[in-house]
């Protein structure tokens, strides 16, 4: 009933990972709020932690007459396919998903090649690591994270065949203490560069890096820069928020092409491997210099990926 009163209708984000990651989910929620305020819409951010409930939530949103429903990851594909046709007046956006076969006219899917960013991070790691030992810490060993790890490893090995790349998982995206424990063990094993992929668990990884010199972390969101001015050297950024804002604006404003698939990522600014500006100012000058040195190589690899001369394998099993 409350929803019906909103002037411009309802825009909803159904996120399938918990908020509070200082990363994708938080940035999507922030952008959703911003968009809703700009356009005078009612907004809802709903955390659907349980795959069995996705469909019910989508139906409820459809019944409530939502104008736009945004959700994330491939696991909502089946529920979208089941629900979207029954609510033709609602526009459905799936971020980080595969194209639908066949397409549904009121659904837009967006995919990102995040793993390519991890590949670049791998090259960077291979070049700047002193020990030749690289680590990767994920939340849970699920296919997209496995793919990120494999790409990272491929990147490292492409420039430093004798390096080792070790993966570990915290078992939760919300356990910073465990992240800290894992990272501490990795660092004391001689690993000096860790790529994180674990949402709120990242906080612990960065905290562990802050405890000693010569420990570097690459995380995933600009919001994390300030947590490790001397240790957070780079990020593999994926600006979900911007992507959400772009796609949802199209849907609200009407220049929307339903039934389409957008593949975006490296080269479009949505996915970017970037150095932390804070680290450039405050980090170990040697390392800053070194990272500038290897940057050309990163740019080259990026160009190679974009023009197809470098092929990065996509492999979702460990």
């Amino acid at each position, binding site marked *: *009933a*409350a*929803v019906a009163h909103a002037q411009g209708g309802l825009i*909803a984000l159904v996120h399938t990972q918990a908020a509070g990651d200082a990363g994708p989910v938080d940035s999507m929620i922030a952008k959703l709020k911003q968009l809703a305020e700009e356009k005078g819409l009612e907004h*809802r951010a*709903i*955390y*659907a*932690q*349980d*795959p*069995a*409930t996705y*469909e*019910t*939530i989508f139906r*409820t*949103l459809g*019944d*409530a007459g939502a104008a736009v429903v945004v959700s994330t*990851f*491939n*696991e909502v*594909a*089946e*529920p979208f396919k*089941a629900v979207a046709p029954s609510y033709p007046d609602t526009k459905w956006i799936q971020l*980080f998903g*595969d*194209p639908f076969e066949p397409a549904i006219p009121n659904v837009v899917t967006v*995919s990102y090649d995040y793993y390519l960013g991890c590949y670049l991070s791998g090259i960077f790691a291979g070049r700047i690591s002193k020990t030749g030992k690289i680590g990767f810490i994920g939340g*849970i*060993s*699920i*296919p*997209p994270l*496995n*793919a990120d790890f494999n790409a990272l490893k491929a990147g490292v090995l492409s420039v430093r065949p004798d390096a080792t790349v070790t993966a570990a998982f915290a*078992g939760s995206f919300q356990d910073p203490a465990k992240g800290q424990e894992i990272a501490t063990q990795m660092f004391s094993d001689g690993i000096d560069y860790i790529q994180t992929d674990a949402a709120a668990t990242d906080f612990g990884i960065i905290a562990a890096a802050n405890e000693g010199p010569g420990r570097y972390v690459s995380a995933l969101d600009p919001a994390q820069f300030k947590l490790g001015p001397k240790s957070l050297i780079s990020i593999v950024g994926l600006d979900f928020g911007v992507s959400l804002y772009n796609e949802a604006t199209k849907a609200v404003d009407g220049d929307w092409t339903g039934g389409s698939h957008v593949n975006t990522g490296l080269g479009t600014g949505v996915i970017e491997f970037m150095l932390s500006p804070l680290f450039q100012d405050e980090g170990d000058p040697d390392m800053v210099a070194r990272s500038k040195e290897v940057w050309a190589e990163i740019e080259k690899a990026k160009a190679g990926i974009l023009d197809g001369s470098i092929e990065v394998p*996509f492999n*979702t*099993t460990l």
Partner: protein
Amino acid sequence: MSGQLGAIIRAVVFILLALAACGVIFEFAGYSAFQMFHSIVDGAFLRRNALEHALRWALPLFITATGVVISFRAGYFNIGAQGQFYVGAICAAFVAEWLRGYPGGVVIPLCFAAGMTGGALWALWPGLLRLRSGADEVITTLMGNFLAGLLLVYVTAGPLKDPSGSGQQASSRPLEAAYRISTSNGVSPTIIGIAILVGLAMWWLVNRTAFGVLSGLGGRNPTMVQWQGASTWKIGLASFLISGALAGLAGTIELMGPNGRLAGGFLPAHGFTAVLIALVAGLSITGAAIAAFFFGGLASAALYLPVMAGLPSAAIDIVNASIALFITARSRLVDTLTKAWRRPWKTS
């Protein structure tokens, strides 16, 4: 039964108390308690297809809860329904995957058999540890839940992973349509039939067999049935196995019915809600049917709350938790008020 009516009234009183407490919390947190109650009632009972929405959650909850009733009556605090539910679903998913292509008439029964066996096996080891060594089943089954959760992650990202598309899903391939026992709305004659069958069978087991009476006696006083010559071992193990099998059955139904695929981390609170239902029902099967329906309504309302009232999902966790906190409470005042419905003798 008049005794049970008293118990139900007590449960209702404390659920209302719990909801009132939640209302206060929400007001403090800056949300409208009135809106919350309004949305709960609306979502559970008044909106379009409310009955169907409630049944979708109530049916598997009921089946799991009857299993909990069986083990609690026998005196074993098996709170591992969640893990047994997962393992059941996993086993059924394996069978469905291996036998892909065979006719539904063959595969579906085999899936059910596998699901129930899986659930039973996941209850077997805590049962053995309890009965042979006295290892507390509260902890072992709780740990079993965590382990089953990891197992689910493992199989959905590993052996059973759906390779289609970019292969980024943590879930199994969708089941073949022929193996589905309901559409994604989760209510079908088959599922309702299974639930009724389970209800009748368990009602019969509890109320019309030697096992029912003896396990009830043993649950309240194991020493006494031992002095009567019962093998607490046999009854205990059977209770663990039955409750595990039923949780596994519910997992299978979720898989082959509404979900249609095995997904990582589905229904994480299912087992816990089933425990609440069994307790609210006063460990009776008919009571469990009623309570399951109530909690089914609550579950469907819970999904409605964030949409309609804009409450964060934590709010629903709080509602469930407060109900758990108060549900087993007893109070003189309430007892006095419900005295009219209870029997004359005192049971102290």
